[in-house]
C-alpha cells in the first residue's frame, strides 16, 4: 500500500536525531572510556587505564557505596509504600480524587524547587527539628552531618516518588476483578488475606515495573545532591553520576568520567537483568 521509500522518508529526520543524541553518544561514551580526553589536548588511547584507576580510587568506591546506599534507602520504600497508598485511594470515598491529586503533585515539582522547600524543612531551626524539640529530642544536623545527609535526601526522594508510583499501582488495582474480592469476603477473608492472596499476586507485573524504574532512577540520581548538599558533607552524598558530572564538567577529565559512566551502565544493566530473571522464575 505504501512504498518502502515513503517509510524511510518518514523515519529519516527522527532517525538522524536519535543517532546524533542517543546511539552515537552511547558508542562514543564507551570509546571515550579508553582515552584520556580532556578537551584541550588531542585524544589519546590509554587502554583500560581509566578502569584500573577507578578501582584504585577511594573516591570511586565511596561514590559507588553511596549510590548503593541511596538505592537501598529509597527503592524498597518506593516499591512497598505506594502499594498501600494505592489500596487506600482505590476505595470509593467522597473526595478521593482530590487526595490522589495531592499525593501525585510532588512528582511534578522541579528539583530546584524541591531542594528549596526541603532545605528549609531540614534547617537547624526548621520544621523537622521543631517537631523533634516538641518531643524532647535534641536537634539533628540533617543535611550537614555525614551520617544523616543521605537518609535526609532519601526522605525527599520518597516524598516525591510515593504518589508517582501510586498511580501505576492504582492502574493495576483497577484492572483486578471486583468479583475476586467479593468472593474472598464471602469466604471471610480479612484485609491481609485479601491483599496477600489477590492484590499482591495480580500486581506482580507492576511491582516488577516499579522495581526497575525506581532502581534505574535511584542509580541515576544526582540533581538532588547537586542542589541540596553539593555532594557533601565530606563526599557523603556524592553518587556515581554526581562524580561523573564533577569529573567531566569541573575537572574536564572526560575520559575518566566516561569510564565511570560505562561502569554505571553495566551495573544498571545487570540489576535490570537480575530483576527480570527473578520475576520470570516466580511466574
Amino acid at each position: 500500500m505504501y512504498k518502502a521509500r515513503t517509510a524511510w522518508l518518514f523515519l529519516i529526520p527522527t532517525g538522524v536525531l536519535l543517532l546524533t543524541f542517543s546511539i552515537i553518544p552511547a558508542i562514543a561514551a564507551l570509546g571515550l572510556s579508553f582515552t584520556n580526553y580532556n578537551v584541550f589536548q588531542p585524544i589519546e588511547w590509554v587502554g583500560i587505564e581509566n578502569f584500573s584507576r577507578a578501582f584504585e580510587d577511594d573516591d570511586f568506591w565511596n561514590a559507588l557505596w553511596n549510590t548503593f546506599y541511596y538505592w537501598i534507602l529509597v527503592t524498597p520504600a518506593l516499591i512497598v509504600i505506594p502499594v498501600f497508598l494505592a489500596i487506600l485511594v482505590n476505595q470509593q470515598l467522597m473526595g478521593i480524587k482530590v487526595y490522589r491529586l495531592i499525593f501525585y503533585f510532588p512528582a511534578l515539582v522541579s528539583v530546584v524547587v524541591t531542594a528549596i522547600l526541603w532545605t528549609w524543612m531540614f534547617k537547624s531551626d526548621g520544621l523537622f527539628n521543631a517537631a523533634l524539640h516538641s518531643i524532647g529530642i535534641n536537634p539533628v544536623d540533617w543535611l550537614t552531618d555525614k551520617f544523616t545527609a543521605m537518609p535526609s535526601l532519601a526522605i525527599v526522594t520518597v516524598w516525591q516518588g510515593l504518589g508517582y508510583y501510586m498511580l501505576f499501582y492504582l492502574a493495576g488495582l483497577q484492572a483486578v476483578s471486583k468479583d475476586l474480592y467479593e468472593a474472598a469476603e464471602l469466604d471471610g477473608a480479612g484485609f491481609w488475606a485479601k491483599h496477600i492472596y489477590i492484590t499482591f499476586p495480580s500486581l506482580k507485573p507492576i511491582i516488577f515495573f516499579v522495581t526497575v524504574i525506581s532502581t534505574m532512577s535511584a542509580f541515576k540520581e544526582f540533581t538532588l545532591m547537586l542542589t541540596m548538599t553539593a555532594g557533601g558533607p565530606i563526599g557523603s552524598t556524592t553518587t556515581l553520576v554526581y562524580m561523573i558530572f564533577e569529573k567531566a564538567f569541573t575537572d574536564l577529565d572526560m575520559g575518566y568520567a566516561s569510564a565511570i559512566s560505562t561502569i554505571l551502565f553495566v551495573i544498571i544493566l545487570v540489576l535490570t537483568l537480575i530483576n527480570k530473571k527473578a520475576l520470570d522464575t516466580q511466574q
Partner: protein
Amino acid sequence: MELKTAELQPNIQVKKSRKLSLKNRRNLLRWGISYTLLTLLAVVTIMPFLWTVSTSLKGQNETIFSYPPNFIPESVTFENFVTVWNTLNLPLYLWNSVVLSFWGVLLPLFFCSLAAFPLARMNFKGKNVVFMTILATMMIPGEVTMIPVYLTISKLGLIGTYSGVILPGVVSAFAIFLMRQAFIAIPRDIDESAIIDGANAWQIWWHILLPMVKPMLATLAILKFIGSWNNFLWPLLILEDSSMYPLTVGLYELKGTFVSNTRLIAAGAIIALIPILIVFIAFQSYFIKSAYSSAVKG
C-alpha cells in the same frame, strides 16, 4: 428461591439484617480509618508547600524560623512577590521557560509521531530492526551519554543556544513507542480509502491520522511540558548568558546568591510552581492516563 418453605424465610431475614448492620459498622470504621490516614498523609505531603507559601507571605520584620513554627503570618504581605518580580529578572526567566517549553513540547510531538507512522502502518524491509533499535535506546540512561552529547553540542557550535538545550531531548524511544501504539489502533482501511481518493502519505498522516490520535498527543504533550518546564541539567550545562536562563536555573542561582533572604526565594519558588499547578489541575485526567500507558508497557 421464592419456593422456599415459609418457616425458613423469617430465619434468613433475621440473619441477613444482623449481618448487614455488622457490615455497616465495619464500613463506618473503615471510612474513619481511611479518612484519618488519607488526611494525615495529605498534610505531610503538602507541608513543605504550605510552609513555603506562609514564608513567602511574611513581612521582613517577622521571624521565619521560630519555635513553635508559625504557619500563619502575623500580617500577610505580597511585598516579597513584588520585590522578587521586579529585582530578579523573574519575568524574563518565566518567559525563557515558556519559550523552552513551547519547543520542548512541539518538536518531540512532531518528530516522534512522524517516526511512529511508518512503524505502525507500513510494511517495509528492516522495519523490525529499526523498531528494535529504537526500543534498545530506552536501555541507555541519559546520564551515561551526558558527556558525548555535550561534546556533540559543542562541536555543532550550539553551546549557549536554546537549540543546544532542546535538541537532545526531542526524540525519545518511549514517545515513539506511545505514538506507535496509538496509530496501530486505527483501522487500516482508512489509509486504503484515502490512497484511492488520491491522498499521499504525508496528507494521510497530517490530515487524517494525527487528528485521530489527539488524546495520545495530549498525554505526550503534558509529559513533555512537565519535563521541559522542570529541565534543569541541560540549561545549566549549555546556557552561558544569564539572560537566557529558564526559571529552574534562575532559581538555582537565586538560591546561591540570596541564601539569607528566605522570603524572596520562597516567593520565587511559588511563582515557579504556579504554572505546573495550573496545567496539572486543568489536565488531571491526562496525567492519570499517562501513568496507565506507561504501566501497560511494563
